[in-house]
């Protein structure tokens, strides 16, 4: 299970644009790297990452080997009502990850 850090403001005013910052711990193996004994390391990247807020998808990233290891993503959402920002992702091996943070909107 991959680990991730998700940063959203704890509180926001309704209608305000808030920045969501996310760091997922993942090697993002390109498939072009070799072990010391010459064995190729198979490609394994977080290929799909979806962010929902209040149950609605606000952002989605489809990534390949061109994204650096430990993918970092920052983007903006509209704080409409109190709810959870939920990030879910899956890599090429099928390993899934999830991280969530609440926003209190006043």
């Amino acid at each position: 299970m991959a680990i991730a850090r998700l940063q959203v403001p704890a509180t926001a005013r309704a209608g305000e644009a808030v920045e969501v910052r996310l760091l997922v711990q993942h090697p993002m193996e390109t498939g072009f790297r070799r072990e010391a004994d010459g064995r190729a390391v198979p490609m394994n990247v977080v290929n799909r990452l979806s962010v929902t807020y209040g149950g609605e998808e606000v952002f989605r990233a489809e990534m390949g080997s061109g994204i650096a290891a430990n993918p970092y993503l920052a983007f903006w959402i509209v704080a409409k009502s109190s709810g959870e920002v939920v990030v879910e992702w899956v890599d090429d091996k099928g390993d899934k990850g999830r991280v969530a943070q609440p926003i209190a909107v006043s």
Partner: protein
Amino acid sequence: MKRRAFLGTAALLGASSVTRAQKLLPAQDVGALVARITGGAVPERGGIEVELPPIAENGNSVPFRVRVPSPMSAADRVTALHVFAERNPRPLVAAFHFGPGAAKADVATRIRLAVEQKVTVLASLSGGRWRLVERPVLVTAAACIDEGV
């Protein structure tokens, strides 16, 4: 477009160049990839702000940010951003999609760049409009050239 199918094609396009001589990765035809996404529509040039260092010291992790000025209203919004690196073994770097709850068409990340090359950003706007910009970038320590070095 089905991402799997698209990536598959991209990988095939890339496969021919993924050889021992990766240091001399030829530029791939990003125009064809763009056309596959736009369905042949020719994107308008400009209207996208790209933050990318002119010289990337480490190709394994290059800070990268894209912004498209947009009201992000229901009628006038940016729906997706596609990023291409023509000399990466897989030229399709990523696609970012913005839902109705997105406040800005603004995304920051870190990308890998195999060699000095041109990075292309394609923005998909509501109403079937497209925008495209290209940015050259120098890479001093390249990414993903393990093989054959």
